[in-house]
Structures are given as structure tokens and as C-alpha cells.
């Protein structure tokens, strides 16, 4: 089996989806977390001057968080069974990332009154239509694609983990989406990781 080394900051951020996928797939990997002050010297050694990066067999370094996540999802058998299933998972993830961008913009806003405005707007204008749409995409069995867990479910769970920290009751009333979250949380690898993972602010 190849050896994997994931390098990222000591936060969940853009690395957590990858860590969840390794966990769900039961794939061992080295979870390297670098401190901010070590970053400048490491930066030039990465392909695109960014983390996360994934080293495979001590050689090839892959960058771009979603490219890495897709690669790990494939290794974990969580990509989707057919080509069309895989595309469906991809598209749901892409849609989620569009929402994630807006959320991150809001969280990173430094001006307090602008942030309050953005938070209200996100909570009232962006989040509800997205959740209503995705409630329709999710099956009654709690899977976004077919009848088994894929990385689309795990990515949704991870994103809602961040969003419910700011909007605790966001998922109230969404039967299918709550089932998706449950299916992810009760996956044995994920359950173990959620219990053991370092606690970080974001």
C-alpha cells in the first residue's frame, strides 16, 4: 500500500475533508500539522506555494485541496460507483463550494458591523435556498448519490460542521439532510476520528 503524508496547518480549514476521507476509508496516513512560524521556510518547497499538500510514497507531491480530496476519495472507494455517479458527486461538491466561499467571506470579515450585515444576509438569503435545494438532492435514505456513502455526503457534513458553529439551528426540519449527517457521523472510521481529532478553532 502506498504511504501518504498530508501536510497542512493545525486547523480543520481546507484539510479536514481530506482527513475525514482517510478516516472513512480506513487508510493510514501521516497527519502533519505545521505551525505558522514554520510556514515561510516550507512554502517554497511546495508545488504552488500553498498547503495542503499530499506526498505519495515519499515522492510525488499533489497540491490543491479538492484535487487531493478527490484522489483520497478514489482510494477510499468513496468517489461514486459509475462515471455518472462520480459526476453527480462532483457537482454537489462544486455547488457546496460556492456556498462555502460566501460563508468564508463572512467569517473573515474584519469590520464588525459589516460582518454582522454579512452574517444576517448569509443566514437569510444564501443558506436557506441552498439547504432547500440540497434537501431535494439528498435521498430519503440519507445519501446524495445512489444508496451508499460517497464523498459528497462527507463534504456536506464537513461544511455544515463549520456552518452550524455560526447558525446552530440551520439543519432543523431537513429530514434528508439530517439523515446524511447521521450516516456520515456513524461511519466507524469517521466516528473514531471525530472523537480523537485535535480540537481547533477553525
Amino acid at each position, binding site marked *: 500500500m502506498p504511504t501518504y503524508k498530508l501536510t497542512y496547518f493545525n486547523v480543520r480549514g481546507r484539510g479536514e475533508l481530506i482527513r475525514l476521507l482517510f478516516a472513512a476509508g480506513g487508510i493510514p496516513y501521516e497527519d502533519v500539522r505545521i505551525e505558522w512560524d514554520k510556514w515561510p521556510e516550507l512554502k517554497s518547497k511546495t508545488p504552488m506555494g500553498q498547503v495542503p499538500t499530499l506526498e*505519495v510514497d515519499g515522492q510525488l507531491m499533489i497540491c490543491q485541496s479538492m*484535487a487531493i480530496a478527490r*484522489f483520497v476519495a478514489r*482510494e477510499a472507494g468513496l468517489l461514486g460507483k459509475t*462515471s*455518472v455517479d462520480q*459526476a*453527480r458527486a462532483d457537482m454537489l*461538491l462544486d455547488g457546496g463550494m460556492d456556498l462555502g466561499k460566501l460563508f468564508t467571506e463572512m467569517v473573515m470579515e474584519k469590520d464588525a458591523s459589516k460582518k454582522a450585515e454579512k452574517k444576517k444576509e448569509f443566514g437569510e438569503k444564501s443558506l436557506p435556498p441552498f439547504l432547500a435545494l440540497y434537501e431535494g438532492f439528498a435521498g430519503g435514505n440519507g445519501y446524495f448519490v445512489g444508496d451508499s456513502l460517497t464523498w459528497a455526503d462527507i463534504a456536506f457534513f464537513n461544511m455544515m460542521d463549520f456552518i452550524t458553529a455560526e447558525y446552530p439551528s440551520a439543519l432543523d426540519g431537513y429530514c434528508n439532510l439530517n439523515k446524511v449527517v447521521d450516516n456520515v457521523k456513524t461511519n466507524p472510521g469517521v466516528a473514531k476520528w471525530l472523537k480523537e481529532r485535535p480540537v481547533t478553532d477553525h
Partner: protein
Amino acid sequence: MAPKYKFTYFDVRARGEPTRLLFAAAGVEYEDVRVRRDDWAALKPTMPMGQLPILEVDGVTLCQSMTIARFVARETGMDGKTKLERAQADAFVDELEDLVPKLAMAMIFTTDENEKAEKVKELDKAIAEKLGKCEKLSGPDGHLVGNSMLWCDLVLYNIAYDIEEVYKSGTLQDYPKLAKVYDTVRSDPRIAKWIAERPAGQFNI
């Protein structure tokens, strides 16, 4: 018999052109549906995520431009020869695709003069940063990854076309490996035929 694939997008290149280039490169027939700006409002609510492009195949409707491009790349064997090649191709696309909306905003859709100057500044910075990174990682022989034309080459070609032919000709001189990829793509016979014959589009983007 109707083609297996029906691709619907606006009448522009932008986020839809990589998929059209893939179909062309692979010689695969498809229905190329173009929506004019005025017709969009009525159509929007019928789309799965309220956006274009969509791809209809086997009774399923896919959305999200890069998902569709990756799917068609997979169908036509242009996504990468190995898992690692696929991941590297993905990484190039992830890095480059931000340039598409930036090009559109700076070149066409911003009318206010001051705002446009801002957008142009932002675009120039993004071009230098992203093409710089890709130049560093690109293969030396006219392919970004490995030794065959993959979908990431077509994504680069599409963006480089806008930069070279519409925005600032001569930019690619600073990026010799990327310039080789650009040349390799546009001299592929099927792609050259498509470029010569494709509709001009509602906007030159």
C-alpha cells in the same frame, strides 16, 4: 438517432468551452445548445442549480462547469492515464479556473471606468501569479501533465486564447512551457477545425 450528450450553455466560450473542446478533440458528436442572454430568465428556474452549463446524458442532468468537463474528459479518455496524473490535472484546473470570471469581468462586463481599472489590475496580478505557478509545474514538451493532451491542457488553452487573442497579446512569451502547450492544443487537427468553425458567440469571451 440523437447524440448521447446534450450540452447547454450561454452563447460564449467562458466556462463552457473546455467541454466543447473536449468533444471536438475526441471527435464525439453532441448537441451544442446556446442560450442567448435575453432567454435566460425564463429558463433559469428549470435548471438543477439555477445555472449553466448543464449536460444531459442517460436521463441524468449534470451541472457545474468543471464537473461536466471532468466527466466528459473521463468519458473520452482525456482525464489522465493514472490516478496521479488525474490528480495533477485536477490541480492545474483548480488553479486556473478562477481566471475565467476575472477575464470576463475585466474585459467585458464592468462598465464603470474606475471599477474597470481595478478589475484590470486584479486580473494582471492573478495572471502573473497563476501562470507563474503553472509554468513552474508544467511538463516541457507541450503537455501540462505526462505525455498526452489532457483536459487541463484544454482549460489552459481556453484561458490563454482569451489572454493572447483578446486581452493582451504577447503575454505567453513570458511562459515558454505554457506557450508550447497552447501551440500543441491549437495545432491538433480536430481542435483547429473546431476553432475555425465555432460560432463567434454573443460576447467575445
